[in-house]
């Protein structure tokens, strides 16, 4: 019998065109981007056709659909507005996600140049580029995202775990207890215990 590590001889080699069809992710440094280009003006047209019905003419969002533009300097507020402009650290993510998963319900129908143009328009909607800007695989790495340095790696181990691995109190842990907030005052729970999905 084969031993783990020896390999089992299962599966077959992936062909180059198969890998090209499925491996379309783009890394933060731009690796994985196809050749192509698109300008803000073209992007505005494409966005109006394919995106604006949910995301608004100016990427401001419609109804409950995601807001893609604005919200700058709101992250420390009570209700932060997290958009491509105010929050997203990498432009690669925008290209990759639009190319792979948008428009919602018609994913993977945009050409590479369409995606470049739409991403250029989203940048323009966030005042990150001028109206005559053209985005391409060549200048992609030059775009600076507003919140690129806004993230820290999970720091729970030092900030929380060290202090919370303690022998917990069992008796006389508080002088008094009072109710400070009640969910029934909000009354947002679905009637009859919620809508069944059956």
């Amino acid at each position, binding site marked *: 019998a084969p031993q783990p590590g020896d390999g089992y001889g299962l599966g077959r080699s992936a062909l180059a065109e198969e890998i090209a069809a499925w491996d379309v992710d783009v890394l933060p440094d731009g690796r994985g981007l196809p050749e192509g280009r698109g300008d803000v003006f073209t992007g505005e047209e494409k966005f109006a056709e394919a995106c604006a019905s949910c995301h608004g003419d100016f990427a401001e969002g419609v109804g409950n659909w995601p807001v893609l533009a604005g919200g700058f300097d709101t992250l420390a507020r009570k209700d932060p507005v997290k958009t491509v402009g105010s929050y997203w650290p990498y432009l690669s993510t925008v290209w990759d996600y639009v190319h792979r998963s948008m428009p919602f319900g018609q994913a993977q129908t945009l050409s590479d140049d369409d995606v470049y143009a739409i991403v250029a328009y989203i940048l323009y909607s966030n005042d990150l580029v001028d109206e005559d800007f053209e985005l391409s695989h060549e200048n992609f790495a030059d775009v600076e995202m507003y919140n690129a340095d806004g993230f820290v790696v999970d720091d729970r181990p030092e900030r929380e775990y060290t202090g919370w691995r303690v022998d917990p109190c069992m008796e006389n842990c508080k002088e008094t207890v009072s109710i400070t907030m009640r969910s029934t005052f909000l009354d947002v*729970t*679905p009637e009859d215990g919620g809508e069944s999905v059956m």
Partner: protein
Amino acid sequence: MNRKLTSTSRRAFLRGSAAMAAGGLAGAAGANGADPLITETQDWAIYTGAGVDETPYGLPIRFEEDVVRRNVEWLTASPISSINFTPIHALDGTITPQGCAFERHHSGAIELRKEDYRLMINGLVATPLVFDYTDIERFPRENHVYFCECAANTGMEWAGAQLNGVQFTHGMIHNMEYTGVPLRTLLNEAGLGAAGDLADKWVYVEGADASSNGRSIPMEKALDDVLVAFKANGEALRMEHGYPVRLVVPGWEGNMWVKWLRRIEVTDMAVGSREETSKYTDVYEDGTARKWTWVMDAKSVITSPSPQSPVRHGHGPMVISGLAWSGHGQITRVDVSRDGGMSWETARLGKQGDSKALTRFYLDTTWSGEEMLLQSRAMDETGYVQPTKTQLREQRGENSVYHNNCIQTWYVNAEGVAENVEVS
């Protein structure tokens, strides 16, 4: 023993035996003479029931119609990219029935036949490979029980007590016994020699659906306990849970448990996908955000009594029951408070739970109609103690969205009705 009917149960008695059965009051009928359910021959003792040829694959009996998934319409823009909730208020033990185990999709639950299934491994490997479904079942397999908890479970409660039911506050979770192949086995099949030093390498995983749900997993975790699973609770995965193959990432946030798994890529850096930048990053009070908050910390909740599971049995013996879990390993202890955290009693574990799996706890107690502020507090094998919401807010503010593992409080009034509250 006190058999006096409470006002609640007296009303139920007047509504007839159906309500009595629901309230579990059969024993109380003795005070009003003989119980006709005993003294009169019932239909089911006269006529026959269903034959063995009637139900090739059964559903729960109709009296359990409350034990279903539910959604909250206002939470999301579309039910296609949305969440529903496991009815944990009505379940016991630890294994979640698949049919009511929660769903979270980003572009809906897709139908993918085994015959159409392909799994690709590419990137920094010696030989990029394609497997079909039958290949997966030919590798040595393992069985493990793990919880899958959405990173956003309890997320609506950050700013206050909002949803009045444990299904809604804590129901983005399920716990199943998986059969699958260790991810390391498949990576070894493709050969990791091309990756060089594995310490700084990553595995990028994505699904076959339109949303793709791509996530980056550090190689250390990928080679540890991640499973490529094809069975859950003994049978094939349900469509909505990733049929025919999903990733199982023990102890880590549910988003990384990629369903309809189609590609595994070995990379030299994290991809920085939408699901690990725009989403599944946790905003601090000062506006900076944590990324790569993978582990789900120790957490627990009392499932009964709870708003959807009020006390209907009157005074006397009462079982307080709930669930505890930790992404760091086993649950070692659960304490329960009836007075909002002023004092605590150590509960009994139904059995020692598996590592990174749900553990059931019970506090067998008595209730004399006093108001209660019920809380549970879990401890895991690392010694970590489940924090209060105040402790979490001091560290993170109220805009984290994700990873709310705070101690939950239910206010139980003299009638036995429970409500989601916050306490000082």
